[in-house]
């Protein structure tokens, strides 16, 4: 394969890699924002995991199996 063909293929390769990642990124972003908007899941409340992090604060979402003895 000559140098020019190789460079052309590398060029196309670069374009399609970028396109592929672009679609994956934005697809995932869209799904996150859609789930937030439809009320399926509120992602923003998880910031409270930092602000209410003392050991005696009530868990934001309790684990099902964390039964207190």
């Amino acid at each position: 394969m000559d140098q020019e063909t190789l460079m052309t293929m590398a060029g196309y390769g670069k374009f399609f890699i970028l396109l592929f990642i672009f679609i994956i990124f934005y697809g995932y972003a869209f799904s996150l924002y859609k789930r937030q908007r439809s009320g399926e899941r509120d992602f923003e409340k998880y910031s409270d995991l930092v602000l209410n992090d003392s050991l005696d604060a009530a868990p934001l979402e309790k684990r099902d199996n964390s039964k207190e003895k």
Partner: protein
Amino acid sequence: MQSNAQLEYDYSVVKLFTFTTILFGIIGMLVGVILAFQLAFPELSNLAGEYGTFSRLRPIHTNGVAFGFTLSGIFATWYYVGQRVLKMSLKESKFLMTVAKLHFWLYFITIPLAVVTLIMGITTSKEYAELEWPLDLLIVVWWVLWGVSMFGMIGMRRERTIYVSVWYYMSSFLAVAMLFLFNNMEVPTMFWANGAPSSAMHSISMYAGTNDALVQWWYGHNAVAFVFTTPIIAMIYYFLPKESGQNVFSYKLSVLAFWGLMFVYLWAGGHHLIYSTVPDWMQTMGSAMSVVLILPSWGSAINMLLTMKGEWGQLQTSPLIKFMIMASTFYMLSTIEGPIQAIKSVNAIAHFTDWIPGHVHDGTLGWVGFMVMAALFHMAPRIFKRELYSKSLMETQFWLQTVGIVLYFTSMWIAGITQGMMWRAYDEYGSLLYSFIDTVTVLHPYYTLRAVGGLFYLIGFLLFAYNIFKTMTSGRVLDKEPANASPMAS
């Protein structure tokens, strides 16, 4: 599990790792400053025979700051942040407490052994993976112990949802484990020497030539990703909202940026081998992935800046917020600079020049160093139950170190581009215009400036160490844990 009311978080391991962060920070940075002065004034290389030469000291600097200072900071903050966001205490499990302490002591033994072997010239000669095979085995043991404690703590958590910082710590654990094992596949020669003399401390890599280079830079670049980036993002996602009392601007963006980084970073290492013997498509991929990397990197950095929305006044009143916002800003700078350097045409000038260490240091000094110190400043009043000793000392440190970093990277930008241009310059007959020594002469003032910048940063770090020491020993005792802004005496 015991009732929460009788429990409190256990900071004994946090304290141990805090001490080593400071100790190894001083040693690693001091050696760095010595190296910078040696580059400017080569006669300084002859002060301690073979033990004081650049080649012996350089791996001590890189290993010392990456695996001594930074890793200690990562472990200290993990045992602090991990317990708090998972709402579990190490006191609840004797097993996990033992594992955490063993993790610390084995780690603590490894670092002096690393220093001694490196200064004796025992090295695999693989950059950032210089330690020989017996030490590599020791590292595997404490890395596994860290994993056991991490997943053990996650298993005992009270919170159902795992906060994004913990994801970043987990990614660091898993990725470094994989990178370390594959890059350090080495054959100890003594077992296969067939009677020929061979040192017990010598091994050869399982890979050769171009393959070795590929594995090496897949490791080398991702050591940047999973030691200098993801765990530091883990820190800022906890410490900035906590210290400022603000919600993260967008939790969704934090999750999106996380998966972006995970997906893209592992493919970018090829940019270290542009114009080398590795396949062209791999160089192109490394270059393309590096450019894409701007997206998730800036996603996290902008998310942090926007977390301060409406609260920018805190930047004036709290030096701790200043450190974190400056860290985030330096993260933005280095993550736009890296992709620019990875573009093939720019790389033709930048490769092998001083622009590369310039880039590395605005990331490590500005982003990693500032964030680790900010994290330790935030933790100090909580783990020692005392007020921070001196706000004015923090301010002085901040400005001294900021000026130091600026001197460092601006001098290296100029030096690097000058070097790159001079190496490539040729006359109408195609002959090179300059010899190598011409570039060395021209670069001398910039090397001196870099060394002075490094010295400023080191002095700032000593102020930091003194401030933490005084906090621990003579800070005003606090009767209750501060909720957000860390209390500091003027």
